[in-house]
């Protein structure tokens, strides 16, 4: 194989893996939850079938809405794709990487949120307004946790590119800086559940609009728009999961296939953990969540202190 083709493939693999496998995470979570409640759960490819079904449907729009409502899912999914392009899969670097890409990553997450919230407000529904209001509160508090957590890793690994940072988190580093990295992983885990609307911050399967956060913001979307939103949500879970697993699974053999295998195993475990958490605990009261997120920031700060020690 020529050098160029090899490079192209190395660039395409991380992106393609995410694009293809992301919806599978949802199946794994669903199966785990089904296991805990004594059911079989959905078929392996159900999320893909759902997306296909939605893409084939027509759409119904509220008369209140404008072009912003229709643009929301498109912009959101496009921004998620850009996020995915910067996310390394463990030791396998991302196709797009540069100094400071973690800042673009964090702000693209902000863009996804912004457009989702604005599209929700476009409906004029008080339920969607309520969800939007909670979403912006929790994400504003999660942002410092994410960035300070990443700063701790940057300080430890002396790099400010996601691919370099994740690649530098090796087993040896875990041995010397275990506690700090552990705290960062916990902080990033809390950011992950917040950004992806998972228990204990939000319950993706709740049926009461009053208690929803993220789900209620997409109540009015249907057809291809909803397909974009659901696929985007799966990709976002994949991207943040990849960051978390990249930090938590320090298998860096240098062999791309082995590294990728270890990474995928890590993603599987992450999905199982999310499923177990969602089966074993209820979501927190809304008033408690800010404390959780401020706590996450505190853990990240503590991680910085531990790195300096």
């Amino acid at each position, binding site marked *: 194989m020529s050098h160029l083709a090899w490079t192209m493939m190395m660039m395409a693999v991380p992106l393609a893996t995410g694009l293809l496998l992301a919806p599978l995470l949802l199946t794994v979570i669903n199966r785990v939850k089904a296991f805990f409640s004594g059911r079989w759960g959905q078929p392996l490819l159900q999320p893909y079938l759902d997306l296909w079904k939605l*893409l*084939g449907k*027509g*759409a*119904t*729009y*509220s*008369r*209140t809405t*404008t072009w*912003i409502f229709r643009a929301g899912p498109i*912009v959101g999914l*496009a921004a998620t*794709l*850009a996020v995915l392009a910067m996310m390394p899969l463990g030791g396998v670097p991302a196709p*797009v990487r540069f*100094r*400071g*890409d973690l*800042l*673009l990553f*964090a*702000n*693209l997450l*902000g*863009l996804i949120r*912004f457009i989702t*919230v*604005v599209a929700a*407000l*476009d*409906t*004029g*529904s*008080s339920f*969607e*307004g*309520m969800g*939007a*209001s909670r979403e*912006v*509160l929790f994400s*504003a*508090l999660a942002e*410092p946790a994410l*960035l*300070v957590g990443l*700063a701790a890793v*940057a*300080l430890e690994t002396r*790099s*400010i590119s996601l691919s370099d940072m994740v690649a530098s988190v090796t087993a040896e580093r875990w041995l010397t800086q275990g506690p700090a990295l552990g705290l960062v992983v916990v902080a990033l885990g809390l950011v992950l559940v917040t950004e992806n609307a998972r228990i204990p911050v939000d319950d993706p399967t709740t049926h009461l609009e009053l208690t929803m956060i993220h789900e209620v913001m997409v109540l*009015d979307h249907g057809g*291809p*728009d909803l397909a*974009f939103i659901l696929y985007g949500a799966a990709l976002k879970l994949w991207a943040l999961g990849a960051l978390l697993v990249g930090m938590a699974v320090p298998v860096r053999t240098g062999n791309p296939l082995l590294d990728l295998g270890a990474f995928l195993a890590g993603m599987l475990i992450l999905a199982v953990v999310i499923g177990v958490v969602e089966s074993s605990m209820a979501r927190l009261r809304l008033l408690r969540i800010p404390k959780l997120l401020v706590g996450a*920031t505190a853990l990240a*700060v503590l991680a*910085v202190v531990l790195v*300096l020690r």
Partner: protein
Amino acid sequence: MTLFLFAMGVIVLGGLSALIAGRSARRASLLGAGGAVTGCALALGPALRALLGGPLERLDAPWSMPGGSFSVALDPVSGLFLVPTLFLSALAAVYGTGYLKPFGATRALGEAWFCFDLLVVSMALVMVARNGVLFLVAWEVMALASFFLVTFDRKTASVRDAGWTYLIATHLGTAFLLAMFVLLGGATGSLEFDGFGTVAGTAPGLIGPLFLLAVIGFGTKAGFIPLHVWLPEAHPAAPSHVSAVMSGVMIKTGIYGLVRFLIVLGPPPVWWGWLLIGIGVTSGVLGVLLALAQHDLKRLLAYHSVENIGIITLGLGLGTLGVATGMPALAVLGFGGGLLHVVNHALFKGLLFLGAGAVLHGAGTGEIDHLGGLQRRMPWTGTCFLVGAAAISGLPPLNGFVSEFLIYLGAFLGVIAAAGTVGILVSGLVTIGALALIGGLAAACFTKAFGIVFLGEPRSHHAADAHEAGASMRWPMAILAAGCAVVGLFPAPALRALAPALRLVTRQPETAVAGALADAATPLWMITAVATVFLAAVLLLAAVRRKCLAGRPVEETVTWDCGYARPTARMQYTASSYAQPLTELFRLVLRTRVRLVAPTGLFPSRAMLVTETPDVFREAVFRPAFVGIRRALDRLRILQHGRIQLYVLYVVLTLVALMVWTLR
């Protein structure tokens, strides 16, 4: 320089002829705005040349004022602040012709245009003046011109109040500047800026106090918390094109002064950086929190100016720290981010204030909770406002993200490089945490401002009967929105243009600055690349959606309200309810007052909820202080009788006393 001064003359002439033609509103607008636009366009050339590092242009002419001389110069730093000032002022003047039209029916506009033109010239003069007296005169003209513009609607009591607050605040600030110039003049024996550099040699102990005076004096104009109290009063009171100029560029004269004196006063000690970072963090975080709790669109925007000044100051602080500790990369990134944010803030804040003006103009109210659904009625304004809202929230691919990116990058570099020095590490971490929090809260605030005002259903007849602004108001907004996108998509050339100014500010050799800029250029071009891919993905997905929906049923119906069939506009979430979780969380700082008349009985008839968030610093610091001063000064009332004869007697007595004193 000649062209520049000629352009200033054109603007003054435009203002004067507008004043003379004041009876006819149409002619006054034409002359006043025409003068401003022509003058700004003429002056933009020399300003751009200065920004890009052209030969230093200067002019020194004698002036009869004691200690004064007419020394002006155009260096890259002047150019950097002049370019956005001239650009935004010209656009605001065009917008003003449309915005002031309804007022022209009942009153003369000559005076308003005269003050506007004078404001533009005085801002430009502040940025080129190289003599203390000239600087202070321009500074004072700027304050007075903007005072008369703020009190344009002087029949309203709240506007008069705002005007007084502004007048007092700006003069208190000027008092500190006056003290600074007197000290500098005393120590160096001249009031020329070029001579001030020797102060480090002649009176090194004076440098610290001088810097503090500059921070207080210029900080009052810029709106550092807690010196910001005039800002949320004055900016909403002024006509909207004036608010855009005041918020977009006039408060930057404070930043300009600070930067100029950072250059003049010599190499900075480390604590200046810490002080600026501390100011930046407080102004940034508290500014956005106070903005969140506001219900008036222009007041909300005014508090965001405080927040953005905070971000700029954070950048300047990091840069100063970099200079003081000998880290060229940190210096260039900090100052680069901060100064680029000066330009960016002029673009998006100008845009947002013009948008708010279009809302006031079209709907007749800026009360957020009375609006809604304006996107359908004012699609141009709405779309431009959305661009500005996304830009100010620091979202890619717009310009607000770029300058915040540079500051972030500097902070991260500082954190990495400074494992040994705790000072830089803590500064970097505090910057990162504060910027993250500010970004999140700004997004919360602007989804509220845009979402409640422009989306959903109209909450009152004001909003329901709103109409789109005219062409003279739409085009300036569209141009500013395009500017936000251009800087956001091509950040690397934008930063490169700042190179000559950065050389001056960072005191680094040319190679060090060029190296740091080259290092920063790579990530900036990558941002361009990712933004391009992102935009391509948007187009592709839009095409996919169109293909999916082709030939399939697409219907319109009511918003799904969980089975409730008759939703009304009053059931929508309001600005207050949207912000309530956040204001509740930060109630310690905000101290929102809530007045609730709860529904009672089996058939409740009346219920009411009023929330109000007065400025905590105004309430807790300045009001008691000024009440105390007034009480102390009440004693002097015995001198005040209202009889002219007695006052003439005082004058005569004073003159006699002075005569005796001089003849002694």
